């Protein structure tokens, strides 16, 4: 029986090649998109699951409230004392380990110097929480002694070539020697951190580096990523509810307020970090669960469109199968047997599509990798969790797309179909219309979303930042390394015609503004604390001219004024936060930031220090005497004069090498740093466009098949109309009108949905475009145009053919 069904199915496919191709192609592409997106999703949700204790490891995070009690900062890392104290206070915690990022730092072995990025200090029990695979060295002791270092194999090769790295000594920042005690395998791709060099935590006890006392008392340095190991299935609420009391017990009461009233601790499951953690400080940039949802939705949309094609084309062609059904019924077939027959056809075609899709996925995965920057492999799909559903796919998709045609066709009355009383698929026309409307609604939604995503991306990249980001070279450096020689370094640079300005700051635009210290402002004769949060950046005399930020009131810091060595500039947002109506009112006021006291010398126009995701926040540029703790410089910014960027860079490099021979010259352009900020959106946009195009293409294929069929059904009508004198254009209009009406209905449905979705998407950006009505019109016209071309070509052909031919088809 089944053989008979399959035989008919295959012969039918061979007979109606175009429609079979549309069905097969649509389903194949639909399933391929699903598989591609599935590999991506499997990758995204697999983060940190390589860790054998993944379900028991939690990260401690810390939030800070502003004076209104609203969370103003939430960091993924905490202060160094928390780790050991938590372990003491809560006996249920089995282990605690801390990781402290070093940032970019020059490392040297003999004559080789490299800037290393992924360098961390790690507690000696790191291996008992993270599954670090030590290829050389003893996991129990590798990070025990001060000044020990373990590194990945590729780094070892870079420094030591073929020599045995163990017991070799490398020099950090030209100051400290570390002995290599182990070689470890790099963390897997799907990990939320990728250290390549780990220094022993015990080293930090040395006051020259950090200091044992500071490790126990520095509550303000929230840069230590702290991980806890809990017993299996432990209810973390037990610990979290006791955090406020814990904070009050150990942090004391500075300023008579309980610490628990302005700061909180949280626990975060290790496996949740990658997709759901978007805190103000993260070890690396994380993924986003929203992106996973968006792409799952798109994959399902594409598959749905392909299924709709199948339903539409099958029911449209039902007239052609009517006779067969009639004969089968008179030969004794039950309705259920006819249903099974049509379902086995749709299952067969889906099975073929699934096999093709697996091959296509394998072929196109490198493309997806190129766009996403990920390293996905088809191996991710080779697990039982994927293979079993994949084997079921033909049945699920086949039955989903085949059930309606099967139910519809099996209901045919043999008397009618065999007597020729049957009218081609008439009963199903309205349902087919609904499906076409659904397809086009999805397509229009995707067109609108794509357009708005790109508008927003363009806006972010082109919106004026409030300063000129072009031709600014930024270099991270250690303030101590240049020290007093900075002035001559700067003068030497400025002697070149290629270089316009050289400024120093603690942070540079494109980075985050996270540093905050209490501010006080003039109130009568005394200073009163400011209630609003004001972030700060340490800047020198030349920072503002280098960036070309507009000074609204007052003046820039100036060497001409002796008192400027401790002084401030605020941005306009900060003056508003102080409750001042006009920027001018701020100039000349006494101001205190942290322990630095001085006058406000000028007010800057608001400028975008951070990405467009962030609001412009109140900001103070602080000029503090050299050596004030917490007020050092970390970056040099150089503005190149004119267009000779390479000349400027060459001069910069030469000068750098003379002053800082021990530090590799590594720079980045500020405009590129800003572009990087939007890279993930850019990638998302590219993916979005690709998948939307695929969706629209498949929808059009379906429309092509459907309109071809609709026209073939009306061949006789067209002939009669032409005999009676109808023009080609009137016939094309007649044939296209019905479909265009459907596109119009689809547009009406799509507009509010697209608006709603994009309205929410844009909410993530502090600076965003407003959704413009013309995008909707353009999307509607675009969809209509595509539909019109699809139908029109066939309509014209039908209308042009001589009427005798069409009348003879009876």
């Amino acid at each position, binding site marked *: 029986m089944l053989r008979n069904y399959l035989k008919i199915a295959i012969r039918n496919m061979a007979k109606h090649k175009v429609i079979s191709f549309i069905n097969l192609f649509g389903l194949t592409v639909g399933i391929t998109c699903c598989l591609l997106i599935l590999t991506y999703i499997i990758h995204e949700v697999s983060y940190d699951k390589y860790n054998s204790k993944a379900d028991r490891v939690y990260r401690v995070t810390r939030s800070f409230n502003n004076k209104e009690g609203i969370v103003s900062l939430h960091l993924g890392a905490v202060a160094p004392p928390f780790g050991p104290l938590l372990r003491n206070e809560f006996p249920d915690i089995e282990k605690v380990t801390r990781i402290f990022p070093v940032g970019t730092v020059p490392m040297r072995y003999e004559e080789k110097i490299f800037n290393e990025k992924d360098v961390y200090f790690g507690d000696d029990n790191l291996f008992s929480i993270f599954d670090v695979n030590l290829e050389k060295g003893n996991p129990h002791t590798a990070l025990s002694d001060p000044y020990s270092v373990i590194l990945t194999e590729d780094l070892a090769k870079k420094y030591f070539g073929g020599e045995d790295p163990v017991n070799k000594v490398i020099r950090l920042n030209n100051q400290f020697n570390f002995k290599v005690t182990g070689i470890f395998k790099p963390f897997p791709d799907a990990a939320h951190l990728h250290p390549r060099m780990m220094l022993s935590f015990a080293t930090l006890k040395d006051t020259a580096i950090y200091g044992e006392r500071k490790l126990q008392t520095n509550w303000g340095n929230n840069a230590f990523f702290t991980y806890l190991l809990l017993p299996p299935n432990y209810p973390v609420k037990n610990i979290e509810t006791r955090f406020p009391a814990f904070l009050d017990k150990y942090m004391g009461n500075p300023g008579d307020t309980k610490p628990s009233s302005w700061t909180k601790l949280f626990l975060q499951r290790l496996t949740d970090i990658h997709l759901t953690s978007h805190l103000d400080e993260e070890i690396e940039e994380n993924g986003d669960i929203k992106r996973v949802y968006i792409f799952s939705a798109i994959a399902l949309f594409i598959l749905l469109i392909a299924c709709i094609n199948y339903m539409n084309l099958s029911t449209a062609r039902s007239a052609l199968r009517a006779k*067969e059904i009639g004969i089968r*019924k008179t*030969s004794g077939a*039950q309705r259920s047997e006819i249903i099974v027959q049509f379902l086995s056809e749709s299952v067969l075609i889906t099975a073929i599509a699934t096999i093709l899709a697996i091959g296509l996925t394998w072929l196109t995965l490198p493309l997806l990798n190129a766009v996403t920057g990920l390293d996905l492999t088809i191996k991710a799909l080779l697990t039982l969790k994927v293979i079993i559903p994949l084997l079921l796919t033909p049945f699920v998709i086949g039955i989903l797309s085949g059930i309606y045609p099967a139910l519809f066709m099996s209901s045919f*009355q043999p*008397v009618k179909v065999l007597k020729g009383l049957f009218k081609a698929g008439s009963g199903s026309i309205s349902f087919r219309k609904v499906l076409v409307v659904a397809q086009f609604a999805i397509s229009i939604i995707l067109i609108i979303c794509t357009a708005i995503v790109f508008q927003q991306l363009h806006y972010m990249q082109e919106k004026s930042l409030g300063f000129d980001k072009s031709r600014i070279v930024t270099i991270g450096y250690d303030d101590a390394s240049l020290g007093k020689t900075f002035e001559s370094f700067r003068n030497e640079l400025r002697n070149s015609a290629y270089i316009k300005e050289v400024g120093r700051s603690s942070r540079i635009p494109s980075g985050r503004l996270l540093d905050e210290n209490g501010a006080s402002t003039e109130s009568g004769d005394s200073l009163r604390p400011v209630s609003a949060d004001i972030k700060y950046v340490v800047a020198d005399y030349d920072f503002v001219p280098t960036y070309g930020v507009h000074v609204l009131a007052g003046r820039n810091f100036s060497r001409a004024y002796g008192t400027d060595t401790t002084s401030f500039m605020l941005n306009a947002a900060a003056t508003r936060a102080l409750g001042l109506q006009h920027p001018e009112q701020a100039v000349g006021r006494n101001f205190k930031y942290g322990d630095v006291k001085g006058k406000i010398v000028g007010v800057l126009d608001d400028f975008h220090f951070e990405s467009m995701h962030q609001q412009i926040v109140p900001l103070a540029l602080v000029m503090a005497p050299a050596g004030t703790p917490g007020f050092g410089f970390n970056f040099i910014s150089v503005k190149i004069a004119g267009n000779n960027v390479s000349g400027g860079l060459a001069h910069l490099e030469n000068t750098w090498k003379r002053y800082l021979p021990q530090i590799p010259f590594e720079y980045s352009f500020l405009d590129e740093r800003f572009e990087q900020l939007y890279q993930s959106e850019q990638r998302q946009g590219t993916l979005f466009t690709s998948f939307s195009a695929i969706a629209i293409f498949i929808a059009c294929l379906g429309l092509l098949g459907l309109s071809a069929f609709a026209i073939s059904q009306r061949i006789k009508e067209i002939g009669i109309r032409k005999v009676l004198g109808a023009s080609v254009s009137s016939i094309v209009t007649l044939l296209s009108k019905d479909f265009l009406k459907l596109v119009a209905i689809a547009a009406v449905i799509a507009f509010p949905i697209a608006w709603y979705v994009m309205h929410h998407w844009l909410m993530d950006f502090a600076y965003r475009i407003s959704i413009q009505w013309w995008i909707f019109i353009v999307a509607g016209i675009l969809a209509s145009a595509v539909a019109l071309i699809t139908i029109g070509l066939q309509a014209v052909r039908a209308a042009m053919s001589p009427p005798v031919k069409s009348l003879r088809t009876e």
Partner: protein
Amino acid sequence: MIKISDLQKVYRTEEVETVALNHLSFEVKEGEFVSVMGPSGCGKSTLLNILGLLDDPDGGSFIFNGTEVAHFNERKRADLRKRNIGFVFQSFNLIDELTVFENVELPLIYLGVKGPERKQRVETVLDKMQIMHRRNHYPQQLSGGQQQRVAVARAVVNNPKLILADEPTGNLDSSNGNEVMQLLTDLNEQGTTIIMVTHSEHDSRYSHRIIRMLDGQTVTENILV
């Protein structure tokens, strides 16, 4: 074998009510060969469809082999149909995608006959109809006469007690038509009951009895044998 009494069938559209069968009654005994004749629209085809359990009457009684079947549901009708009734249509109604062999095989598949037995039975009947040499051809590759022979082969392959033929020679030239009529006569002689709707006086002479219909009623019955 068949006894219908007071059979009614009315077709309704929004405005028009057409009485297709108007309190029709007659009987057909096992082994009979009956022709039903009458002008277009007199209800012949409606009658045949009801007799073939393809359609149900609006009223009256239809006793088939001693069982009242007028109110049977679709499932029971299909079951009865596949065991007892073979159809021959004017337009042959072969499935274009299946070969001669596969077309004839179809009723046996739905009866659940096993493969080897199916093969043997289909071959026997194809032999009898003298189209064995065409077994692997598709219907489009055959002449009208050959197609109708295939259709007859399909109708008899499950050894039905009753064959319903709806103008079996309507699409054939006279020599092919005669051949088909001869086939039916042979079958009848072997014991199969045949009810045939026809416009052809010539064809009707092959049967034992002619029922003439007008406006959904029988008007005369001629016994030829």
